[in-house]
């Protein structure tokens, strides 16, 4: 049967996100946030989610709206500081002990997700050695370099944003929209991609940044970002 991963509405696939699921959300600095999908996820209101995203507090990403809606039990992030002196909703919940925080150096964060998708259960990284973010982690000196043992991160659902997709699920990204999306798509059981445009014919191989095998569902939003 001809493969076609395009969907008309995302409500049904998002509704499969269960209480307690581990969700990865792409995006960095205003580029690559799957905000169309996050709106639907917020309305679906699963509870006790673990969120894996670069930032828990980025104003352009609707990741923070899931936290504000008290849907999140734990975040794994590289940034969790709200702008300004007032506490952000995340920081308030964190202070109150109602949300758990795992703060990870961004390179270890990206590599742990990549490892999760690549079948590498753990690796040694020099990053973070001797810092508070390596507290309790196993260390080892390899070829004279002090390293920390870092475990892979995997997830149940990846929500990512691309520019173009084809019916096979191949994804093309616009410049820095890429950031964490390819790694996250490899590391999750189910990947849902929102894109500006989803086409019938196959993307040229030279335009494919994320191979179809990593993508389960594609929805076109028409949005530029």
């Amino acid at each position, binding site marked *: 049967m001809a493969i076609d991963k395009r969907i008309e509405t995302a409500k049904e696939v998002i509704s499969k996100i269960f209480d307690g699921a581990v969700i990865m959300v792409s995006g*960095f*600095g*205003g*580029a*690559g946030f799957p905000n169309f999908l996050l709106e639907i996820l917020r309305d679906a209101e699963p509870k006790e989610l673990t969120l894996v995203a670069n930032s*828990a*507090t980025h104003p*352009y990403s609707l990741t923070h709206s899931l936290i504000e809606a008290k849907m999140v039990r734990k975040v794994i992030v*590289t*940034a*969790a*500081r*709200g702008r300004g002196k007032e*506490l*952000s909703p*995340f*920081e308030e919940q*964190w*202070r109150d002990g109602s949300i758990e*925080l795992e*703060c*990870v*150096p*961004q*390179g*270890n964060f*990206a*590599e742990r*997700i*990549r490892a999760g998708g690549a079948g590498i259960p753990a690796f040694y*990284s*020099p*990053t*973070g*050695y*001797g*810092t*508070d*973010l390596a507290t309790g982690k196993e260390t080892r000196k390899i070829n004279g370099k*002090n390293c920390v043992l870092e475990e892979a991160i995997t997830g149940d659902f990846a929500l990512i944003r691309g*520019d173009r997709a084809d019916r096979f699920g191949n994804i093309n990204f*616009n*410049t*820095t*929209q*890429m*950031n*964490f*999306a*390819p*790694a996250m798509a490899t590391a999750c059981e189910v990947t849902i991609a929102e894109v500006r445009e989803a086409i019938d014919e196959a993307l040229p191989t030279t335009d494919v*940044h994320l191979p179809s095998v990593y993508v389960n569902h594609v929805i076109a939003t028409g949005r*530029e*970002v």
Partner: protein
Amino acid sequence: MKPLNRNQIAWRAAQDIPDGNVVNLGLGMPVLVSNYIPSDRDVFLQSENGILGVGPEASELNINPNLVDAGSRKVTLRDGASLFDSANSFAMIRGGHIDITILGAFEVSISGDLANWDSKIPDKGPLVGGAMDLAVGAKSTWTMMQYNTKDGSPRLLNYCNLPLTARKCVNRIYTDIAVVDVTNQGFIAIELLESITAEELNTRTEAEISLASDCKPLQAPADLI
């Protein structure tokens, strides 16, 4: 000459970037360095969200909302630029392919330890981003900072008080009153504001600091404001 302002510190650091180098500039003061790289030098700026060859900030005319740098600024690409995902970007950083990273700093210890990511403001969330990876991965780590805190406390210390970013990583420190090398013989000022004596520098430094035998006056164009 008065103590250097932020742009003058950035100018001073920019003069030391060798032709052909690949440089990653941290958030805050370091990103100003890009404005002052001498025109006879061809330098590639790396941005950890996935750019090698960041160009000038975008204007209304050439803005691409998906093309941002690590500071969330809308940017352009320079000639010869390339793009990649976050896992590959940090492979580039961790793998030692960045010549210099210039980072902001709260504190630097005499052995080169860096504290720049957690200022311990009560209840504010942490923000580590790529700092730990950059400090460990770049061939050289420079910092830019005010020589002393607002209340006059030293930032060049025997041991850092704030949480560490990385151990033994800082090679050079650019400040408003001195340029300081971190060496096996401790801190050595290689440039010092003419109005400041060695004795005064010492009182403003917790750790031992000496003047290089060929220590020069710290200078910067007066018209940079």
